């Protein structure tokens, strides 16, 4: 039992001081917490007065494991961070090791990486929409619509990497294997069908009155707060901050593609949802161009060493724009086969920094929607 905290910062001004506060523990086993995540909420009636996230239910000390195995052996572990987006996790890790060793990536491998990363973004955002609607009470239907479409992308992943979700695909200086025959044609069909799905989803959801009243003005934050709290990805851009690592760092070959970065205005749940819908359309543009332009050639740098890799002494921080936000890996090498320090910068954890600020003053049912709109995966939050 936790003592009831001091609630002097309550934003509900006309609160009856004699009214009793209720402490409610949400989770860790609750469908709307997206895994094993717990929140200690203090309620005044139905209004949230205080909210404290509790972490660690899925903690397995991924960083410690990685400091005791070789560089290559960490790739399958990175799949299990944000298990919806294992391919972007692989890429972020491979990018950091490439920075640490000073390794180039052949052109075809760069194209493969971009195609897979954007497909990952598509399927993550598609699943996100389904989950968010589930949190709002449209349980099942929207999720299944999303999952039906997402499965087509996962089929592509399976035929390339051998696994729907745990891909273990990217390697230092390239990729593990080339596309099987007919893969690109199949991918093109999926991409060509996607706008139809997006239109349908938009028609079904975005003009829905219930959805608008549940999301607009709920959990709004200012851009200054969002930057200071280190938010990243779509929820940072929903507040109106123009910051996308694909454009800022231009890692890989993103500078060769023309795409736009959707920017929000209010920073509320509605904007955060719309960011995802708009981002998917931009991803489709990148995908179309990449599939058209992909050159032939090697998929892995011949100088790359996988087994018994001992990078030169030094450190490197590499980051990419994963579907959830800024995913970074910080590595220190002391010329041993294992990294001396292996650190994951988890966007899901840091995006939760403002959960309390977003939730205070809203109803308890809105907390589920706000949490859903942040889009967390507990494999990455707890690591």
């Amino acid at each position: 039992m936790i003592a009831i905290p001091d609630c002097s910062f309550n934003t509900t001004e006309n609160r009856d001081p004699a009214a009793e506060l209720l402490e409610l523990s949400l989770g860790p086993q609750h469908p709307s917490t997206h895994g094993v995540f717990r929140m200690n909420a203090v309620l005044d009636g139905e209004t949230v007065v205080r909210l404290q996230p509790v972490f660690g239910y899925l903690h397995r000390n991924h960083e410690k494991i990685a400091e005791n195995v070789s560089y290559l052996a960490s790739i399958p572990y990175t799949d299990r961070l944000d298990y919806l987006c294992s391919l972007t996790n692989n890429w972020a890790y491979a990018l950091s090791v490439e920075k640490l060793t000073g390794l180039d990536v052949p052109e075809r491998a760069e194209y493969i990486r971009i195609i897979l990363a954007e497909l990952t973004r598509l399927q993550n955002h598609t699943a996100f929409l389904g989950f968010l609607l589930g949190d709002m009470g449209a349980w099942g239907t929207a999720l299944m619509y999303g999952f039906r479409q997402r499965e087509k992308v996962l089929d592509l992943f399976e035929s390339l990497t051998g696994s729907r979700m745990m891909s273990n695909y990217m390697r230092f200086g390239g990729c593990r294997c080339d596309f099987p025959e007919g893969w690109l044609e199949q991918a093109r069909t999926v991409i060509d069908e996607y706008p139809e799905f997006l239109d349908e989803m938009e028609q079904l959801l975005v003009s829905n009155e219930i959805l608008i009243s549940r999301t607009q003005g709920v959990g709004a934050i200012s851009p200054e707060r969002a930057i200071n709290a280190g938010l990243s990805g779509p929820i940072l851009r929903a507040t109106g901050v123009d910051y996308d690592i694909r454009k800022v760092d231009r890692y890989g070959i993103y500078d060769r593609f023309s795409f736009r970065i959707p920017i929000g205005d209010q920073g509320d749940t509605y904007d955060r949802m719309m960011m995802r819908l708009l981002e998917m359309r931009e991803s489709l543009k990148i995908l179309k161009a990449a599939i058209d332009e992909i050159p032939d050639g090697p998929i892995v740098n011949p100088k790359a060493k996988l087994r018994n890799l001992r990078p030169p002494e030094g450190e490197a921080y590499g980051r990419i724009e994963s579907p959830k936000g800024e995913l970074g890996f910080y590595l220190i090498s002391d010329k041993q086969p294992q990294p001396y320090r292996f650190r994951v910068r988890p966007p899901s954890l840091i995006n939760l920094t403002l959960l309390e600020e977003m939730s205070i003053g809203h109803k308890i049912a809105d907390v589920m929607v706000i949490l859903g709109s942040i889009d967390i995966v507990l494999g990455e939050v707890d690591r």
Partner: protein
Amino acid sequence: MLTLETIRDRILEAVPDAGVEIISNPGPSGQDSLLVSSGHGLAIALFLRDDPELRFDYCSNVTGVDWLDKTVKEKVIVREDDEDVETQVERVVPGYLEVVYHLYSISKKHGPVVLRLRTADRNEGVELPSLTPVWKSAEFQEREVLDLYGIRFTGHPDPTRLLMWENFEGHPMRKDYCAPDDDEPGDPITARERKEEAS
């Protein structure tokens, strides 16, 4: 972006008696870092955030690093029986814990600048200033460093463990941490493992 040398000089201009040192990175990534004296950590962080030319408003990554005591072998000339004799002496360089901050600027779109703060040692003097008042993004990450490395952050709004449970003892990410043996007594598989280990 300004070079790291210029940033260092500007910090010294703004915070005159601060200790700032450039730690060069021998690897190919070329990400050098600034080692900052812990006493002036907060003032330097505020300067980096608010200086109109630097504007490091985004603290992306906060993490700890554990550097163990190092034994260095040195050759020393000792006078023995009116003769200079060269002998090897072992000297222990005390270890320390380190917090690393990766700073970016969203308004200026530059970065990263790597900021390092070091504790006095690994046992008692593990106190460092918390930079959460400057960048709120450090809140959970500093709690994680506190949890896994045992660095005490002064001025942190909620200095509790983040991932491990409340009554947990020890700091698992330290290099000399030994996991407790929590196997059930009398477990035949563990017993066989122990036997194999011993042989």
